[in-house]
């Protein structure tokens, strides 16, 4: 047995062949998964002693076809300014989406008649006449009594502490108002069907009549719906790669929640071993071989946001008072753990990492990439900016939200704040529905800047969706879920809510050929259970 081990002398098939010849006692289930992942799957048990089996040589991992886009990168240095007014963002959004929404509404309502009256389009919300059937386009604004309000915050400066973060902004007594506004003014919207399904910031067209009390009774609403979706591989324009038939998968994980203590490390170790193909038997190792990119969707560290949570703040305040920055209070161990974690995986699989709301990145969307200084070991796998703008294979720290092309598919990812915040506006909506609505409204962070902090964009708002992705994932959700939604022109988008790894131990795998989704669940059986 030992003698028959000829490492890496022959192609894989040859090794397998000689193995069979010399060891007829082993049944070889040799199976070629695909052209590229050539690997003999043997049912060699690892629960077996001497003589040891000659370790099979796995074929190398495939290259990851990867093209990150820099849609959400903010200008650097002094070009990044915060003196602008947020109102401009709403105007930009309205201006950019008005035509699309108008077009949709015209298609739907041009022939609409109610009581012999034909609906007609009104340019500005203030031009709506009482009793006239018409439709207008505007931005939704939700007036909700429980919604955090900056004016309240200022007027109640003497609060001992900020109010706790709210689970929902919906007032249970149902006194929330919905408004439709454009540059001319606001219109109060009434109507049973609509009020609970829109959030501040989405652009929509509303059909109805103005009532005697000045409110606008809505009969129907419509939105822009999915934008145009490129074909697969379309995004690789400068040198279009031909679709190769190779099995490849993308792994998405979020909410690693590294604390620097030793509680959660074992599942992380298992995750490392799974991704590097060390754990498990040959068959499962071959499966792990198909992975060719790991995406970490935010919250890799659990308490590292520059802005402390309410609890952390209270805990810190109760300690001694320090003026200025206290270097000794900085605990580097979570970041070191994360760096060690990444640097163990990086030799075998490229990583894309998004920041999340507990990561040490800026708080306002779009969050900028995690700084390389956090990763003294892992940053060796980053191609220096002087050579190339993008690290296609290796360690790529990107923005949140992020978009780009992986294996020819257009991917849009976020680490969950947008979805979380949107869900506070509405009842009975699950994350996937929220994600779907964002795509249909063509705004992936409608509630920013109202209740979600956001950079004050002026000329253009990257948070508006201009191209429909094939895959849209949101990290740090409570549970895994997935859904395929279809657009008006046959666009198909796979929506994935990625659960927190720390709580569920789940990693989402997306087959990049079929866009099928599967899960890997890593767990430890507690002793004595």
């Amino acid at each position, binding site marked *: 047995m030992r003698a028959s081990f000829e490492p890496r002398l022959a192609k894989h098939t040859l090794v397998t062949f000689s193995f069979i010849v010399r060891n007829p006692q082993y049944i070889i289930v040799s199976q070629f998964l695909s052209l590229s992942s050539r690997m003999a799957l043997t049912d060699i048990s690892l629960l077996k002693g001497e003589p040891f089996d000659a370790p099979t040589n796995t074929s190398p991992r495939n290259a990851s076809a990867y093209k990150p886009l820099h849609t959400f990168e903010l200008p650097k240095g002094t070009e990044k300014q915060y003196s602008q007014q947020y109102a401009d963002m709403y105007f930009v959004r309205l201006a950019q989406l008005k035509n699309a929404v108008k077009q949709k509404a015209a298609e739907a309502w041009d022939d609409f008649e109610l009581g012999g009256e034909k609906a007609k389009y009104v340019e500005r919300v203030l031009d709506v006449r009482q009793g006239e059937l018409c439709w207008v386009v505007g931005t939704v604004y939700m007036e909700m009594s429980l919604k955090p309000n900056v004016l309240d915050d200022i007027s109640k400066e003497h609060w001992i502490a900020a109010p706790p973060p709210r*689970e929902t902004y919906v007032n249970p007594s149902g006194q929330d108002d919905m408004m439709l506004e454009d540059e001319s003014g606001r219109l109060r919207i009434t109507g049973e069907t609509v009020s609970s399904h829109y959030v501040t910031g989405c652009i929509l067209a509303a059909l109805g009549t103005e009532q005697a009390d000045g409110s606008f009774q809505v009969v129907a609403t419509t939105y822009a719906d999915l934008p145009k979706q490129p074909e697969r591989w379309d995004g690789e324009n400068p040198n279009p790669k031909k679709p190769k038939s190779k099995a490849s998968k993308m792994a998405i994980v979020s909410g690693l929640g590294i604390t620097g203590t030793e509680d959660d490390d074992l599942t992380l170790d*298992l995750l490392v071993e799974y991704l590097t193909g060390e754990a498990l038997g040959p068959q499962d190792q071959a499966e792990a071989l198909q992975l060719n990119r790991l995406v970490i969707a935010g919250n890799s560290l659990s308490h590292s946001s520059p802005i402390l949570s309410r609890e952390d703040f209270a805990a810190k305040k109760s300690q001694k008072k320090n003026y200025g920055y206290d270097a000794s209070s900085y605990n580097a161990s979570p970041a070191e753990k994360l760096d060690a974690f990444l640097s163990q995986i990086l030799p075998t699989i*490229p990583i894309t990492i998004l920041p999340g709301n507990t990561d040490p990145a800026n708080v306002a969307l779009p969050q900028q990439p995690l700084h390389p200084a956090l990763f003294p070991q892992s940053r060796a796998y980053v*191609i220096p900016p002087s050579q190339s703008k993008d690290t296609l294979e290796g360690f790529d720290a990107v923005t949140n939200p992020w978009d780009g092309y992986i294996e020819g598919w257009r991917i849009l990812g976020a680490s969950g704040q947008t979805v979380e915040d949107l869900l506070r506006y509405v009842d009975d909506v699950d994350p996937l529905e929220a994600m779907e609505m964002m795509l249909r409204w063509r705004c992936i962070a409608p509630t920013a800047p109202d209740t979600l902090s956001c950079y004050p964009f002026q000329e253009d708002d990257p948070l508006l969706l201009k191209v429909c992705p094939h895959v849209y994932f949101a990290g740090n959700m409570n549970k895994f879920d997935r859904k395929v939604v279809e657009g008006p022109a046959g666009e198909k988008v796979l929506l994935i809510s990625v659960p927190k790894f720390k709580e569920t131990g789940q990693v989402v795998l997306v087959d990049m050929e079929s866009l099928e989704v599967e*899960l890997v669940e890593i767990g430890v059986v507690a002793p004595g259970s």
Partner: protein
Amino acid sequence: MSSEVDYKEYLAARLLAENHPVTYRLLSRAVKTHVNKAKQMLYEFHKIQNAKKPQSIHATYLVTGRKRTLKHTNGLNGKDGEDAVMQDSPFPSSVPEPQEPPEEPIPTTSIVLVREEELEKTKAEFSDITSIHIYSLESGAIEDLGILTLCNAEVPAQSKNDDPLELWQLYGCIHNPYIKRRTPKSSITASKSSSKPTAQPAAKSQQPSASAAPAASKPSNTKPSATAPAKATLKRSDSSKSNASKKGPHAGDIFKSFAKAKPPKPKETATPSATDDSPMAGMSEDEGSDSEPDRSTTQVDEAKAAAAREEKEARQEELRKMMEEDLVMEDAAASTSPQDTADMDEASQDTPAATPLDTQKKDEPKPVETVVTEGGRRRGKRRVTKRKKVKDADGYLVTKEESVWESFSEDEKPPEPKKPKPAAFSTAKGGKKGGVAKGQGSIASFFKKA
């Protein structure tokens, strides 16, 4: 392959002698073999040892496959999901559209780490097991699987010098030929880290000398090494060790105040020391002079050496007397040992000296540790090297351990997570070394006090 013989030795030493757990990854790094082979090695060892003596070795298993019912896999998530619904909606009953059930169950691969006690129960939950192997061996049933992370933490250290991109050849990780790694950058960080620990001993040696009367401590240190040519090598280990551990035993009481006050300073003083401060230079020469005497002592004739020895003995006797008067807290063993250390060989010293010092040493690691957290990166590194040294001394190889400590200080970059067991050892081991170094240490401490 030699690894197939080695592994038994390694496992026996680690499991049976040291009582540390071993994971398959650590074994594969230790004996440099493929991970899958390491898994089988663990199985073999487990089988043989338990055949010899049942229940002597305990195992954990990694089971992979599909869980029996989807319900079960959803059970985990279901809990979270329900909670979420409760939070988001006060009226779960009024969900307008019932959530569409997924068209097909999501294929879920479960990877579960389980102790051998729960193995059968866990296996029953699986409908299809695609692989199962031993994850780790322990010398007894473990209550907290978290201890295995300490074991895993040693893995990167084991293969530190290897190019991470070449590990696949040896250990069978998945090979990715497309990944590039910038080496120059990493080598800079490596050299940085290596230079820091080496600077540390110098700083250490300066601490006693700077505070003590340097003129007196210098001759007492350099002369013995000049007089005893045969002991040149011993001396070398002695002097450097004493420098390293000087703060150890004695700092506990006398130097505590110094140790606390000092840490911020040495960082700055360490570099310019060689030039601006002559007593410091003399002290740091202490290490350098070890090699010089090697050459010079061959030329020194016996008469001179004898005279020097007498002079030194007289001086030490004098010092000892003063010390007995002043340092009441120094116990008898500590105060009598000084002149012995110079003349007798250290080996005999080890055992008697160790015992009294153990008590002193015990509260010692703590202060140094606090220095770690407060003092920034450099201090942290010093701790690490110290611990490494200690751990290697488990085999009672005191002289060997010296070199191990050196080399580890070269490579050691990231601070190791705290390990409870080694820490326990450190008290005993450090005490031994303190015993060796006692002669000089106590002299220095005397001057320090003055």
